[in-house]
């Protein structure tokens, strides 16, 4: 089922900006969550990580940004390189300084800080470069005009969409080269999801920021991403160019909800799934 990257139209020549090779992640020393995940992200690309709840999308992102340790998780095998350098042992702070920043699932805004203060925390690593920070703030407001209106509201009292914008804007303030975006559509109205993805796309195009996206909303993700990986219980079960994935029969059935040959009962679907082992 794997489609060779060249076939998928990905630039083979340049080495990828980020490559994750066969990583295994264990939580609390006992719970094996990732069982050998490999993926690569080209510079300037938008790559989507798809899969159901608990497939290991967030864990993959957190093992790249090294936020795993906060949750007592650990990468026990494999390697992660960014720009040709091993980054497995770096702290989140060092990673943000190198340009890799994560926007966490569920926004995680600082509720008691105002929207603007939230954005400014994103510029923490830039210290006292006042002019740069002021410029970046204006840039974020240009992408998210809504945030400018709400700049002095406490973030905890803003809507889910505004919080998602704050979280993305905050990451942008660090002047990232790569954003790890975890489930931006969570709990948002379809229209808003579309709007946020549009902005993410324009950030990718105008700022040249590489995006690795974890999403459950396969439909939207595959429209904006150029390449996708599908995770199932801690393994990559399928990968390919977004178009190819979108037209794949299995993806259509399991992730896009477009059943091919008539409607089956839920029980049949479960059986079918159990029998069929994708890849391995």
């Amino acid at each position, binding site marked *: 089922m794997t489609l060779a990257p060249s076939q998928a139209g990905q630039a083979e020549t340049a080495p990828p900006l980020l490559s994750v090779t066969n990583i295994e992640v264990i939580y609390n020393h006992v719970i094996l969550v990732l069982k050998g995940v490999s993926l690569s992200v080209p510079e300037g690309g938008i790559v989507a990580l798809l899969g159901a709840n608990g497939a290991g999308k967030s864990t993959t992102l957190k093992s790249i*940004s090294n*936020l795993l*340790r*906060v*949750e*007592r998780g650990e990468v026990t095998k494999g390697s992660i390189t960014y720009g040709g350098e091993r980054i497995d042992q770096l*702290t*989140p*702070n060092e*990673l*943000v*300084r190198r340009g890799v*920043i*994560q*926007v*966490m699932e569920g926004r*995680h*805004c*600082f*509720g*008691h*800080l105002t929207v603007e*203060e*939230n954005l*400014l*925390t*994103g510029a*923490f*690593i830039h*210290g*006292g470069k006042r002019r740069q920070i002021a410029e970046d703030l204006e840039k974020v407001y240009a992408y998210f005009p809504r945030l400018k209106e709400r700049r002095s509201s*406490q973030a*905890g*009292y803003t809507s*889910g969409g505004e919080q998602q914008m704050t979280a993305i804007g*905050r*990451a942008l303030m*660090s002047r990232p080269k790569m954003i790890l975006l975890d489930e931006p559509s969570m709990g948002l109205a379809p229209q808003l999801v579309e709007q946020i993805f549009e902005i993410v796309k324009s950030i990718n195009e105008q700022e040249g920021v590489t995006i690795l996206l974890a999403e459950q909303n396969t439909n939207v993700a595959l429209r904006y991403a150029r390449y996708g990986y599908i995770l199932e219980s801690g393994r990559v079960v399928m990968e390919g160019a977004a178009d190819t994935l979108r037209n794949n029969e299995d993806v259509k059935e399991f992730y896009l909800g477009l059943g091919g040959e008539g409607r089956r009962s839920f029980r049949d679907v479960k059986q079918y799934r159990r029998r069929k082992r994708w890849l391995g």
Partner: protein
Amino acid sequence: MGPFLEVLLGGLLTGVLYSLVALGFVLIFKASGVFNFAQGAMVLFAALSMARLQEWMAPTLGWVAFPVALTLSALIMMALAFAIERLVLRQLINQEGIILFMATIGITFFLDGFGQTIWGSDIYEIDLFLSKDPIFLFEDVFPGGLLVDPYELMAAVIAGILVAVLAVFFQKTRVGRALRAVADDHQAAQSVGIPLNYIWLIVWTVAGLVALVAGMMWGAKLGVQFSIALVALKALPVLILGGFTSVPGAIIGGLIIGAGEKLAEVYVGSMFGGGIENWFAYVLALAFLLFRPQGLFGERIIERV
């Protein structure tokens, strides 16, 4: 009217001293969500080093001993913050709040014992070069004026300055903002590149310096001795009243507790046969917990519906 105001003023000024101790708790709680049980021990430790260093240098240096001892004590408190971060907090990163709390209990007993081992366990003096004679204020307004202890007046001025500086630090500076961010959400703060270790080092240093100021004022008032560590217990009702996360709350809570317990002692105490000053504050705090658990100025728990 005169006696009432005198009791009130005396109470308010004592309250300021409670506030100084409560401030230390607030700083650490705000930035790391840890209730630092060791704050009282830090106050004692700081006061002991201040008193002994001053005593040791005074014969040769005279009044210069005071600023020198103060500087050295400040450095000692910074070193202590560094050691606590390195040896305890860093090892316990990502553990539950209750485990960090237990760790601070451990630090408390260590500091109480260690402080007295190296500095001695007698009663020592800190000389602030203030006259021991009380000052009379408003003598032309009231017959006899109001009797005020100059130490307490000084403590009030210092507390005022300290609060102003801290408020600016928290609200206006980059590090202060990062501190509040960490207080809100550790993980998110890490995700945007705020290093937790650095932040913790800073709050424990600031809390150590606040402990030094508190220890100095209490030490000058009561003499430096073990019982100073127990003053921290009086900071608890202050925190409950003012809110665990509010710097102004710590001050106003301190004032209410200070004034409340003195007034209660004088005007209500006789009904109970006196001696209610020691427990009145706790009853007040308990009543407060029932009606406003986040305290007067504590941050409301924001819950979106």
